[in-house]
């Protein structure tokens, strides 16, 4: 039995909107075990984004508890949360969020810059390793505007990997990409999940993408409505191969 990476218990998050309380999350509970690949689904307004912010330690629940890797994040202050994010979480965003006019290598190094325990030599080595893991060796000195969307997202994934997080948190990470590139990214994610046993939480509204994960959690109106294991995980690499060939990206 694997240990729980995260435990959510009766999680609530309320917002004040013009004097009215909006329950963005209204009592959500679930656990995620190490090595799971979970998609969190939901239409807009379902509380998906709020859930993402809390899972990412960017926000705190109003009530209930969220325990990530054995720590209740409610006890942490702003700076401790920042440290916690730095050590435990790898973010992948829809719009990549790479620093412009900065090389791929430097972009990947970024999280380690905020970790004083890592020397600049080690930082560089680990950044190169992470870029190799996403098959971008040879593009170390390319700047974001010299890379395709898929490549930029892979740089972002490398950045999420570099600090050896306990969980990768992806926010609509394929939302800006075409089907082929999306499948490439999903294939990469599956690889990380299978080979490196990375726990991945993937927030999306595309049911298509959920098929690649091992478990799907569906939110609606701030409540968990469905939580099911995926018996038949679709292989992204196979799906990619099945796509009709295009003269698009060759790499």
């Amino acid at each position, binding site marked *: 039995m694997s240990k729980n990476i995260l435990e959510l218990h009766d999680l609530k998050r309320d917002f004040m909107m013009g004097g009215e309380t909006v329950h963005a999350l209204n009592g959500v509970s679930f656990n995620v075990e190490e090595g799971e690949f979970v998609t969190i689904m939901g239409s807009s307004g379902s509380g998906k984004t709020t859930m993402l*912010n809390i899972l*990412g330690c*960017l*926000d705190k629940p109003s009530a209930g508890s969220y325990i990530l890797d054995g720590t209740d994040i409610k006890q942490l202050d*702003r*700076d401790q949360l*920042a*440290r916690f*994010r*730095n*050590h435990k979480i790898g*973010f992948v*965003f829809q719009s990549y*969020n790479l*620093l412009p*006019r*900065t090389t791929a290598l430097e972009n990947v190094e*970024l*999280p380690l*810059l*905020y*970790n*004083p325990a890592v020397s*600049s030599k080690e930082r560089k080595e680990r950044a190169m390793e992470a870029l190799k893991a996403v098959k971008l060796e040879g593009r170390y000195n390319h700047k974001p505007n010299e890379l395709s969307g898929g490549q930029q997202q892979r740089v972002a994934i490398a*950045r999420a990997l570099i*600090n050896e997080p306990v969980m990768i948190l992806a926010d609509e990470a394929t939302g800006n990409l075409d089907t082929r590139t999306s499948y490439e990214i999903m294939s990469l994610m599956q690889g990380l999940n299978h080979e490196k046993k990375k726990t991945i939480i993937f927030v999306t509204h595309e049911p298509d993408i959920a098929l690649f994960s091992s478990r799907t959690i569906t939110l609606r109106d701030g409540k968990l409505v469905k939580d099911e294991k995926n018996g038949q995980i679709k292989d992204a690499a196979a799906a990619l191969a099945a796509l009709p060939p295009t003269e698009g990206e060759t790499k």
Partner: protein
Amino acid sequence: MKLVNLIRLSFRALQRNKLRAFLTMLGIIIGVASVIAMMSIGKGSQRSIESSLSNMGSNLITIFPYNNTPGGARIQGSSVQSLTLDDVQALQRDATHLSAVSPTSQAGGQVIKGALNWPTSIQGVAPEITDIKKLTIKDGTMFGEDEVRASAKVCLLGQTVVNNIFEPGEDPVGQIIRFNKIPFQVIGVLNPKGQNTFGQDQDDIVIAPYTTVMNRITATRYLQNIVASATSEAESDAAAQEVAEIIRRTHRLRRGQDNDFTVRTQAELISTLNSTSGLLTTLLTVIAGISLLIGGIGIMNIMYVSVTERTKEIGLRMSIGARGIDILMQFLIEAVIISVTGGIIGVVLGIVASVIIANTLHWPILLSEFSIIISFAVCVVTGMFFGYYPAQKASRLDPIEALRYE
């Protein structure tokens, strides 16, 4: 984040916007350069005033025959008749803090030599004047007590007078000139002293025994002023007080009655002039300081723009583990780098400007390390002060909102 990394990061950020960084610096550059130039001009003129005044004799005490206390009708100094030779004698006899005393009796007129003439003034003085006013003789000799007693018609000329009434190369010593209608024998020529601080030509002068001037030209027993030398500069104030007491006694002024004369020491004059030029320096420096302030506001403005522009970057940095302090430091260091780089360029430019002013306008310039250190320090403080608020704004952003910022 480590400081080295922060500094590297800030340099990188500035490099991406070179023109903007330079334009932001420009305010600081101009501010610092003008502070340094203004201060070196101010200090330079202050020093030149001091040196030219002590050139006139730093122990000099001058007694004027009028009182410049405010109120009442003011009378032109030369028309007041209160100082006489009795005062001079009393000073010579009683003063213990004075090393030399000389009356001055002055008359304006025309010096004539052959076909040439020149309007100037003749000063009747005692032989001690050379010590008091630090005059030196280039050719010939000074008159002595004998000439004074005899009201001898001898005189010494300043260089300007010589240049105007003698042909070049002609030796004035021994020649006869006329002042108004009275013939004088030239017995000496004074070394040139140039212009004084007020732009007055100190060489446009004829000096003669005071008896000669009083008896033969002005025909009056009243003096223009009395000049004296204190035994030392430190004794100046004591000497001035003693002089006042002695003259009050000879004038028989009762207790409570105002002085009918004024005693002024050179030290006093120096400090008056210094305070005037000091005021000017302060004023110029304040104006320059205001431009530095505007430079600082420029930094603040651009840092705010930069923070807004990079909101998303800030959000990202926060989400991957930057603490508030990391973001604060990043922007603060950027602001300080702008102001310090601007400061360094400004210091160099200020020094260059001062040297150019010294060489082209021939103004006296004195570069002080003090002004350089001060303006540099002000730069760092300006950068920190004006960079702090934008940096703080950046550090307080909510990572969630910053990430979603478009």
